């Protein structure tokens, strides 16, 4: 479904994504892991068509994204890491606006909006401006907006942040059901337990480059013991060390 080839993104002299090559098969829930600043958000924003790659290519469904941006974007539902929505629009108005951006309107959209708002328990707040929503409610609204136009691919950046346990459960069930029906999800997360439980395949990136990619079993098979947890694999591959300077921080 997604094919990244030698993808590069530079901000001035800083290289955020460095010759990244990755394949996300259709009908999979694909976990995209990496430490802070590894280039995950930049990669996802390039896939969503927000940022232009400095070099390399992104193909979705076999079509180069910068060649047919409108057609590609119509297939994607993008959920950013921070849920910025228009503060002065109500939840219902926001969803109606997003549907319109994808060329959809009318009674079918109104029905779908109601279903999504109910699913995320936002029904009672549908006519309140989003400025009065909590962070978690905004996050749920943005997730709902990504599904309003019935996409084939969901690109989601850190979806669990701010969600209550019920919301997190709804989201996991939604993603799994979406994938069972042939949809594809590319999800970045720092919650390794969630990735381990939910994802069909996982890629780990560090310093803008892919350091590992495969199913959990394939990732484990590459380790010496063969039964490492995802956390151990992640720490080993990204070169991260456990905290060692606690005393220095806490002592007066």
């Amino acid at each position, binding site marked *: 479904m997604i094919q990244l080839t030698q993808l590069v993104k530079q901000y*001035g002299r800083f290289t955020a994504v460095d010759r990244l090559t990755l394949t996300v098969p259709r009908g999979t829930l694909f976990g995209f892991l990496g430490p802070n600043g590894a280039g995950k958000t930049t990669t996802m924003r390039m896939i969503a068509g927000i940022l232009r790659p400095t070099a390399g290519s992104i193909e979705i469904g076999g079509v180069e994204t910068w060649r047919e941006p*409108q057609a590609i974007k119509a297939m994607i539902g993008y959920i950013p890491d921070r849920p910025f929505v228009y503060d002065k629009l109500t939840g219902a108005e926001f969803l109606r606006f997003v549907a319109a951006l994808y060329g959809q309107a009318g009674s079918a959209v109104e029905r779908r909006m109601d279903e999504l708002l109910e699913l995320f328990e936002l029904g009672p707040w549908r006519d309140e401006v989003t400025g009065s929503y909590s962070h978690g409610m905004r996050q749920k609204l943005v997730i709902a907006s990504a599904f309003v136009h019935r996409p084939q691919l969901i690109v989601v950046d850190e979806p669990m942040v701010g969600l209550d346990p019920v919301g997190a459960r709804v989201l996991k069930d939604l993603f799994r059901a979406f994938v069972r029906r042939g949809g594809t999800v590319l999800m970045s997360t720092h919650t390794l337990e969630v990735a381990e439980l939910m994802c069909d395949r996982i890629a780990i990136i560090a310093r803008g480059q892919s350091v590992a990619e495969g199913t959990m079993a394939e990732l484990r098979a590459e380790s010496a013991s063969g039964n490492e947890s995802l956390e151990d694999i992640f720490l080993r591959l990204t070169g991260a060390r456990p905290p060692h300077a606690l005393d220095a921080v806490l002592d007066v």
Partner: protein
Amino acid sequence: MSEYPVAPVPRAPGVWTVLAPKWRGLFARWLRGGEIGSVALFAALACGFWGILFGVAYRVLQYLAGLSVGMLLAQKILDAVLVGFASVLLLSNLIAALSTFFLARDLDLLVAAPLNWFRLYLSKLIETAVHASWMVVLIALPIFAAYGVVFKGGPLFMPVALAALLPFLVLPAVLGSALMLVLVNVFPARRTRDLLGVIAVAAAGGLVLLVRVLRPELLFQPGGLGQITASLEALHVPAGPFMPTRWVSDMLMNWLQHLADPLPPVLLYTSAAAFLIMGGWLHGRLFRTGYSMAREGSDRFGADTALGRLVTRALAPLPIARREFLLKDLRLFFRDPTQWGQLILVVLLVAVYVLNIRALPIFSHGRAPLFLVTLIVFLNLALSGFVLAAIAARFVFPAVSLEGRQMWLLRSAPVDARALFRSKFWMTALPLTALGATITAVTDLMLRASPFMVFVSLGTIVVFTVAATALALTFGTFYPQFTSENAAQIPTSFGGVAFMMSAVSLLGLIITIEAVPVAGYLRARQFGDDFGVSPGVVAALVGVAALCAATTVVSLRLGMRRMEELEF
């Protein structure tokens, strides 16, 4: 719990430390390589703008210097200018104080920190004053310089002028912040909608009062320059001995006349110090309650009014995306008090302007002289153009910035960025052009302008407004303020001021080109000749149309390209 070692409380940070993120951020932006072009463009525009202001002030003062009462008249003009500055400063400090003291994103961090409250007050006051005053300083400097040059103030005049300006800027900053502090405490639960409505109406009322006290129409009484001088003498500037504006003008004029009077600077500095102490005291008493009230939620429900339903039905024939985009912009505009508060202000300003044209005494003695009417119609064109450019700065320039942090949605949706830009252009150009044409037509009618002048003024205002809208939108796309906390502050950003300077320069160029056929027309009518449409007249008018068309097309192309490339 009790065994946990407790660090000693450190010394409370000073004002400079609290302001560090602001000034460091500013320096970092200016020193960044990519901004050198912007700085150079701004410097060039500022030099041109200063040159024009200095030139006009110099010409007027030089004329006055030749008169026996020149010094007195020069002081009257200075008083009038300073009164204008004071009212603008008070209003802009009031608007800026709402953001810096109550809406800014750094406030939660600062209020939670063990910060001395008076230092917090001082740092936020400095921030408010800088936001609100820098444009006034930009305009004041060339005017003061002209006074210094014409009346031979010497090399120390500008330092003296700056010394007079500093306490003059502190006073409205303290007053505006104190007023906002009281208002936030009076209006419960963040009713900023009512708050800004009150401010806008009060400001407009104050402006009407100021204009009526000044009675500027006296300057246009028939009777030539001698009469203008007499009118200047009769100008009632509210600048009594207790007004800080008078202390500033006394300080400057005393220096120019080599009079040693320590009273004006002493009054200025002691008043500023006293205001600071009183403002700090009030802040200590009211800020914590006001800040807490400002956090207590806002209007929760999006009102679905009958007018809203009517507009939705009226827009039904439009394509889905365009319709919802338009509806979204309208909803955001009318639900944002910082936006529609300005709209009230603009409507009242336009009303004041039209009423003043009506109050002109040119028809009081029967038939008005053609020269005066034509001159006023031409001046009216320039003033209307300026007003429209200011409105474009207020409402068109922020159009892209207001998409703000929600740009991710528009960029990830299958919406053509160029179509988005075009939609924003037409949405703002059409109402603005209609407004411009209406103001010009109504005032032309009031002035009983000749058909030739009606044609010139109406045609010019239409092409200029379209060009100014395109310029404003493009400048707004090149210098967006995606993280601004208050829409009212976006026009006073770097890009907003650069746009105003460009629009005023374009207007100046248009007026200069059109002055030739208008002068020819006047000469012909004055001497009873027939005024034929000569090739020169056609060339000038076509030239203006071509200039505006080129500005529109080039701006739109650059803006659309930028909109596509915009990364955030």
